[in-house]
């Protein structure tokens, strides 16, 4: 270590140190700062949702509902669902990772509408504050699905407030999607044709399409619930000739595609991780890109598979079932292509890659168990049981959260210019993988044996599996706390990161770490397709 005089080297100016003070953050229009704001807010919401999950698992350790009352339990799972779905999973990858890297990946100086981007974050925060306020003053107990007529007529909790909170979150999601579409269409760097775009962009484009087209429908259906609840003017009340099943149609028109809002961006992340850490072109670029779009479109045609026993007609059930099988194919294609990308690569086991492996494996299980639920005959037995709970946690936690954590580790050096501690990160990745499977695998078994979901007390024969699940949840909790600690630690004590520690060909890495406010010193020009590692042997691992 040579003792270079500190004053001689002026610190390089980048987006983090260009300005200080709370105003410079709260009034920023820099997509990177907004991404950091989002990261902080969704982390808070994630741990709040996590506390609810912990309480749920603790309650379910014994068959008798003896830890909390049944009303409290109902509020716990409702608020766990609302917080995790609307305030963590939907904004997770898009609003944090997408916001941060998407403009850099297209070679732009910022999002197309920077002010709307900031507005999106404020919408999110207002929604989150309203929802948290409702939780504090008494909570809501309708389940995150708000099924009528329970939500409109029978529940005595803060349904209206929660709906208002979710509406704000919905607008935040619409604004994010709007920005993604406009940015990808209009702000691509010279030479960056559609076929040269990184797959992360393709998947975020598909996500944005769903956000734009789906979110308004759930907004109006929740508004209808709120109106019916407050003014008793409504269209779902069966006593007035309304059909409660219509609400389910409108709700799932968004809420099934919402699953793809959660998992498509995660798929985009995995495409980046797999190529970077096997230093190889992706296998079947066009197929993965097309699969993203196919999932977005077909995803809108399968909502009825949530309603096979709810009273829809046999013909419509058949239609939705066959559509659900069709949407499974593009997901399968993606999994096969990622696996094939590893073939004859040069694979290194850095933490983000471990998360990508975890994602592929767990998403495979989650996707295949989806086939059980799309199968009309089997769905009758397993729907509304723990089988469903296990299935969607494999997709959302095993899929989305794994990919989100992988993305955080992967782009951490770019975001903050510091490396995370590799050893700790690997330990926590392994802990999360193990804890996750111990938590949720037993729930598949519970579901087929017949334990219904949303049960506060249950038959004693279900106890063994529930205790296993709770034990797994405690491992999982440790796994989630570790990154929180070491990532914060690394902000100050982490190794200084080079501009491109992974030797990635991604456009977002071709600038300094952390990037300057306008991302690139000069507008990049793209002259080759994505993931051309064979043309760039000079791009080596530095970290």
């Amino acid at each position: 270590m040579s003792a270079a005089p500190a004053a001689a080297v002026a610190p390089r100016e980048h987006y983090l140190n260009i300005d200080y003070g709370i105003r410079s953050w709260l009034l920023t229009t820099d997509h990177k700062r907004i991404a950091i704001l989002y990261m902080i807010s969704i982390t808070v919401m994630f741990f709040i949702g996590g506390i609810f999950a912990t309480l749920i698992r603790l309650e379910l350790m014994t068959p008798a509902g003896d830890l909390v009352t049944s009303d409290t339990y109902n509020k716990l799972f409702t608020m766990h669902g609302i917080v995790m779905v609307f305030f963590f999973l939907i904004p997770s990858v898009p609003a944090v990772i997408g916001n941060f890297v998407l403009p850099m990946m297209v070679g732009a100086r910022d999002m197309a509408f920077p002010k709307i981007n900031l507005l999106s974050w404020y919408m999110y925060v207002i929604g989150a504050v309203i929802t948290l306020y409702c939780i504090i003053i008494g909570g809501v107990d309708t389940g995150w699905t708000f099924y009528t007529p329970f939500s409109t007529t029978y529940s005595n909790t803060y349904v209206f407030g929660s709906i208002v909170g979710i509406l704000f979150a919905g607008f935040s999601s619409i604004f994010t999607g709007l920005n993604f579409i406009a940015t990808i269409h209009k702000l691509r760097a010279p030479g960056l044709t559609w076929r040269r775009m990184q797959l992360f962009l393709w998947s975020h484009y598909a996500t944005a399409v769903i956000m734009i087209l789906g979110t308004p429908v759930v907004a109006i259906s929740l508004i209808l619930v709120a109106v019916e609840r407050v003014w008793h003017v409504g269209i779902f009340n069966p006593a007035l000739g309304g059909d409660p099943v219509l609400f389910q149609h409108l709700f799932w028109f968004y809420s099934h595609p919402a699953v793809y809002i959660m998992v498509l961006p995660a798929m985009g992340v995995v495409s980046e991780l797999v190529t970077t850490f096997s230093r190889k072109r992706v296998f079947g670029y066009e197929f993965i890109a097309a699969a993203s779009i196919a999932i977005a479109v077909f995803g809108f045609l399968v909502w009825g598979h949530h309603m096979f026993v709810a009273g829809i007609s046999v013909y419509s059930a058949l239609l939705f079932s066959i559509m659900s099988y069709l949407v499974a194919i593009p997901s399968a294609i993606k999994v096969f292509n990622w696996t094939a990308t590893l073939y004859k690569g040069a694979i290194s086991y850095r933490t983000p890659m471990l998360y990508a492996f975890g994602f592929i494996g767990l998403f495979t299980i989650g996707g295949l168990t989806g086939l059980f639920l799309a199968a009309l005959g089997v769905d009758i037995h397993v729907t509304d049981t723990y089988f469903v709970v296990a299935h969607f946690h494999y997709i959302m936690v095993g899929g989305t959260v794994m990919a989100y954590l992988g993305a955080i580790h992967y782009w951490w050096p770019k975001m903050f210019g510091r490396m995370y501690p590799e050893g700790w990160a690997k330990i926590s990745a392994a802990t999360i993988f193990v804890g996750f499977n111990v938590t949720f695998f037993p729930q598949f078994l519970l579901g087929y044996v017949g334990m219904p979901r949303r049960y506060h007390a249950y038959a004693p024969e279900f106890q063994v599996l529930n205790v296993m699940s709770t034990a797994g949840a405690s491992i999982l909790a440790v796994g989630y706390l570790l990154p929180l600690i070491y990532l914060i630690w690394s902000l100050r004590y982490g190794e200084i990161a080079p501009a491109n520690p992974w030797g990635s060909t991604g456009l977002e890495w071709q600038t300094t770490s952390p990037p300057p406010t306008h991302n690139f010193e000069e507008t990049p020009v793209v002259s080759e397709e994505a993931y051309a590692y064979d043309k760039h042997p000079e791009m080596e691992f530095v970290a």
Partner: protein
Amino acid sequence: MLETPYRDLDQQRETATLGMFVFLLTELMMFGGLFCSYLVYRTLYFPAFQEGSRHMDLTIGAVNTAVLICSSLTMAFGVQAAQKGLNRTTVSFLLVTMLFGITFLVLKGVEYHAHWQAHEVPGAGFLAHAAGVDPNKLQLFFSLYFLMTGLHALHMLIGLGLVTWITIEAYKGRYTEAYHNPVENVGLYWHFVDIVWIYLFPLLYLISRTHL
């Protein structure tokens, strides 16, 4: 007026237009949820919907349709003037547009008031009835009527707010041949709200005027 992310004004304008159209898609889908509910209940309870439609004030409905079409015309001229950079002309056309918009809302208010007096507002005070029609299903029609036209009226109010804003900006002379995105985008929004009404009118007022 060139914002950070853009290379030039053309790129900025094209992006703004795209953004507005994409935003209008979300509006379309939002109304779509209501149109879907309407379609379902109309299919299930067609006679009640026929009866409900006969409770509508056709004159006001038709006049309002004409008023909105006129407002779209003046809005189109306002945008045209802005494209030429004629701020004064823009202001005049926008003012006329607002006048039409307010006329629409006033007439709508008159209609709502008449429904209120006839006890046709859903809720505990709903008393509308007709021979052989389940009052509950009639009430369902009126619920949808108030929800759809109410959401539309809300959009009209937002539209009026936006027009007020661009009128003030145009009055200050902010728009040029090169930069007038806000006028164009507010125009698009205004026309979209007009289109919604173009569908609401036949769906709510014209279901059947001929026979019982």
